C-alpha cells in the first residue's frame, strides 16, 4: 500500500506527538509510522497485586528483556549501560517516571563556561517560551519559584504531596543548608484536560493504570486524531528514500505480517529516539557527511543512595515521579576533580520485592532465609532513595552503529551500542553518592546503601545526530534539518549537543516544538520533493 501526505513522521513518542500535532493544526496532512501499538490504561498492572512481577518482564524497560514483537533487539555487549525504551503510541513516556525538568541556563553554554563539549546554538531564554508551551500541554505539577532557576521554573498545576518521605528528606537537606525543591512532574495533581488526577499509586515507571500520567496518547494523539492524522501502528520504518535530487521522498515500512509499504511525503521527520533515529539514518545511508551519525551517544549513568529510617514512612506511596529534587551540586566546581554535575531526585522505595535482592555478600542466596525477613522488617516502608543523574559528556567513541549479526523481527539490522563510562562520570558519581549519604544521615537514616551505578539505566538517549551550523561537524542544523538532505528532519534528543544532568523529556518536547514551528513558518522555503 502506498500513501501520500505532506509529512511522514517516524515514532509516536513525545517528540513525534509534538511535531505531528503542530503540523496538523497548521493544516498539513501527516502520516505517522509507529512500530508499537496503543496501550490502554487497563493494560498496565499498577492496580493489580502482580505489579511487581510483571515489571520484571512484560513492562521491563529493556527491550532485550521484554522481547515483544514490536521491539527491536539491541546489541549491548560492548556497552557499560543498557539503553531503555518502550515501543507504543506515547513511546517511552508510557513507562517514564514523568520527572519534569527544564535544563539549566548553564546547560546550553558548557563550552563557554567550562571549556568542555559544545555550546548549543540557542540559549535557555530562547527555549523558555517553548517549555511553557509544552508544560501547559502536559499538565505539569510543581511549585513555581524554584530558586535554582532564574525564572523559578513555573508550573501550571500545584505540586503533588511530599508525603512522609519528602518531609524526612527535606528536613535533612535543611539541616545541611542544601538546595531542594518539591518535585515537578508531568503528572496532574488534579483533573486536567484529558488526564485524570494522580492517585499516588506510585507505579509510574511501569505505566499509569489510572490515566493520570501525562503521556502523548492522552495529551496529544486524541487531538491529532480529530485533525485527521494517519497514525499507523505496527508499522516499522525500514528505510528513508530520496528522489533524484537527493531530497527526502518516502519511507518504506513493514507491517506485522512482513508486507512492505511506502509512505510518501515531501517532508520526513525522525522522532525514533537517540538509538532508533541514527539506526534509520545508517540503514538509509543518509546525512552522514560529518561521520557523526550515531556518535556522541549520551545515556546519563545513574547512581543512588538508599537510606533506612526508624519511622514508618509508607515509602511505597507515589508518585514515582520525583518527590523532591536538588540542584545543590549541579554546577562545575573544579576542586571536586570533575567537570559539570548532577541533579538529584528523591524517590519512594516501591513494594517489598526490592528487598529480595540487594546486598547479599556476593552469593546468590545471601538475601534469602532469615536475612529476607530481617531486611523486610527493617527496611520495607522505611526507606527511600536519593537518585543521581550525572551529566554525561559527549565522546565520539560512545556510539550506535548497525550490528552485523543481530536482526529484528523483520530482518533489519539491530542497533549496536559501544559505550564506556568515563573517568569524569565515575568521579562525579563517587562525589555525589558520598554527599547523598550525608544527606541521608542528616535526615536521620540509621543505615545507608550506595548503588554506585546500575546497568539498566539508559533511560535518556541523546546526542547521536548532533545539531550545529557546520555540516562538517554536525548532522542537523539548529532546527533539526539534516544537512545535505532537503526535507529530512530530526526532532528527538538525537540532536542534543550535550546531555545536561536533567531528565530530558521537557527539553525534547520544547526543542521539537521550536523546530516544527520553524518548519511550519518556513515551509514555502523548504526545498521539498
Amino acid at each position, binding site marked *: 500500500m502506498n500513501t501520500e501526505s505532506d509529512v511522514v513522521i517516524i515514532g509516536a513518542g513525545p517528540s513525534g506527538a509534538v511535531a505531528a500535532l503542530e503540523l496538523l493544526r497548521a493544516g498539513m496532512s501527516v502520516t505517522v509510522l509507529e512500530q508499537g501499538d496503543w496501550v490502554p490504561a487497563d493494560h498496565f498492572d499498577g492496580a493489580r497485586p502482580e505489579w511487581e512481577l510483571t515489571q*520484571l518482564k512484560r513492562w521491563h524497560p529493556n527491550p532485550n528483556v521484554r522481547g515483544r514483537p514490536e521491539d527491536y533487539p539491541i546489541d549491548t555487549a560492548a556497552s557499560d549501560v543498557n539503553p531503555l525504551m518502550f515501543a507504543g503510541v506515547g513511546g517511552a513516556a508510557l513507562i517514564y517516571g514523568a520527572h519534569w525538568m527544564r535544563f539549566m541556563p548553564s546547560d546550553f553554554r558548557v563550552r563557554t*563556561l567550562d571549556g568542555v563539549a559544545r555550546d548549543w546554538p540557542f540559549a535557555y531564554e530562547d527555549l523558555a517560551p517553548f517549555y511553557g508551551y509544552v508544560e501547559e500541554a502536559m499538565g505539569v505539577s510543581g511549585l513555581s519559584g524554584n530558586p535554582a532557576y532564574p525564572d523559578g521554573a513555573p508550573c501550571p498545576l500545584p505540586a503533588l504531596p511530599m508525603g512522609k518521605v519528602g518531609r524526612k528528606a527535606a528536613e535533612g537537606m535543611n539541616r545541611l543548608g542544601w538546595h531542594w525543591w*518539591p518535585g515537578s512532574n508531568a503528572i496532574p495533581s488534579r483533573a486536567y484536560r484529558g488526564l485524570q488526577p494522580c*492517585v499516588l499509586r506510585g507505579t509510574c515507571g511501569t505505566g499509569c493504570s489510572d490515566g493520570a500520567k501525562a503521556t502523548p496518547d492522552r495529551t496529544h494523539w486524541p487531538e491529532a486524531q480529530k485533525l485527521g492524522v494517519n497514525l499507523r501502528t505496527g508499522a516499522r520504518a525500514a528505510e528513508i528514500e530520496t528522489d533524484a535530487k537527493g531530497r527526502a521522498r518516502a519511507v518504506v515500512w513493514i507491517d506485522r505480517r512482513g508486507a512492505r509499504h511506502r509512505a510518501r511525503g515531501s517532508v520526513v521527520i525522525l522522532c525514533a529516539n537517540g538509538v532508533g533515529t541514527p539506526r534509520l539514518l545508517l540503514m538509509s545511508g543518509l546525512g552522514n557527511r560529518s561521520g557523526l551519525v550515531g556518535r556522541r551517544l549520551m545515556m546519563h549513568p545513574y547512581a543512588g543512595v538508599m537510606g533506612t529510617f526508624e519511622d514508618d514512612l509508607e515509602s511505597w506511596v507515589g508518585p514515582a515521579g520525583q518527590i523532591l529534587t536538588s540542584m545543590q551540586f549541579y554546577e562545575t566546581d573544579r576542586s571536586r576533580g570533575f567537570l559539570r554535575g548532577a541533579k538529584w531526585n528523591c524517590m519512594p522505595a516501591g513494594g517489598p520485592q526490592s528487598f529480595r535482592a540487594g546486598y547479599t555478600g556476593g552469593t546468590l542466596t545471601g538475601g*534469602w532465609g532469615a536475612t529476607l525477613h530481617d531486611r523486610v522488617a527493617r527496611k520495607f516502608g522505611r526507606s527511600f532513595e536519593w537518585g543521581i543523574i550525572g551529566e554525561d559528556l559527549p565522546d565520539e567513541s560512545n556510539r550506535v552503529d548497525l550490528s552485523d549479526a543481530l536482526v529484528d523481527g523483520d530482518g533489519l539490522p539491530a542497533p549496536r551500542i559501544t559505550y564506556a563510562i568515563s573517568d569524569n562520570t565515575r568521579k562525579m558519581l563517587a562525589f555525589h553518592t558520598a554527599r547523598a549519604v550525608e544527606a541521608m544521615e542528616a535526615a536521620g537514616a540509621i543505615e545507608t546503601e550506595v548503588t554506585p551505578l546500575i546497568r539498566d539505566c539508559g533511560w535518556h538517549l541523546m546526542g547521536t545526530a548532533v545539531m550545529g551550523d557546520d555540516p562538517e561537524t554536525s548532522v542537523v542544523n539548529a532546527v533539526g534539518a539534516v544537512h545535505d538532505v532537503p526535507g529530512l528532519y530530526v526532532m528527538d534528543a538525537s540532536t542534543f549537543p550535550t546531555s545536561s544532568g536533567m531528565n530530558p523529556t521537557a527539553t525534547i518536547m520544547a526543542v521539537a516544538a521550536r523546530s516544527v514551528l520553524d518548519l511550519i513558518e518556513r515551509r514555502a522555503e523548504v526545498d521539498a520533493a
Partner: protein
Amino acid sequence: MSLSGTERKRLGALARVMIPGGAGQPGAAALGLEGAPVDDVLRIDPTRAGPLRRFLALEGPIDTLAGIEALAQHEPDGFEAVSVVLANAYFMHPETRAAIGYPGQEARDASVGLGEADLALVDVVAGRGPVFRRV
C-alpha cells in the same frame, strides 16, 4: 502448564529454606506457597516455568542455603526463576501483606498537595535566595 507432584514437592522444600518465616512474617510452609500461590505467578508470567523446572530437576541437597547456593551457582538462570516465582508468590499473598503492613499500591488523594508543614520547610530554601549560576 502446571508443575508435577515431584516438582511441587521440591519447590516446597526450597521455599521452606528460603522463606522460613520470622520477624513477624509468615513462612512459606504455613502459606502453602508451592500450591496455588505459585500457580498464580506462573499463570501471570509463564516464561518463568522453563528455567524454574530446570532448577527443580537438579539433584543435590537443598535443606540448607549453602546447599541451594551450590546448585544456584551451577544454574543461575534457573535460580533466578525460583527467586522471582517464590518472592512474588510470597509478597502477593494477602497474609504476607497484612503481616508487613503493605496495603499494595493503593489509590490516595493527590489533590491535598503541599501542607503547611511542607511549605514551612520550603520557606527555608526560598529564604536563602537564588542559587543558579549566572551565564
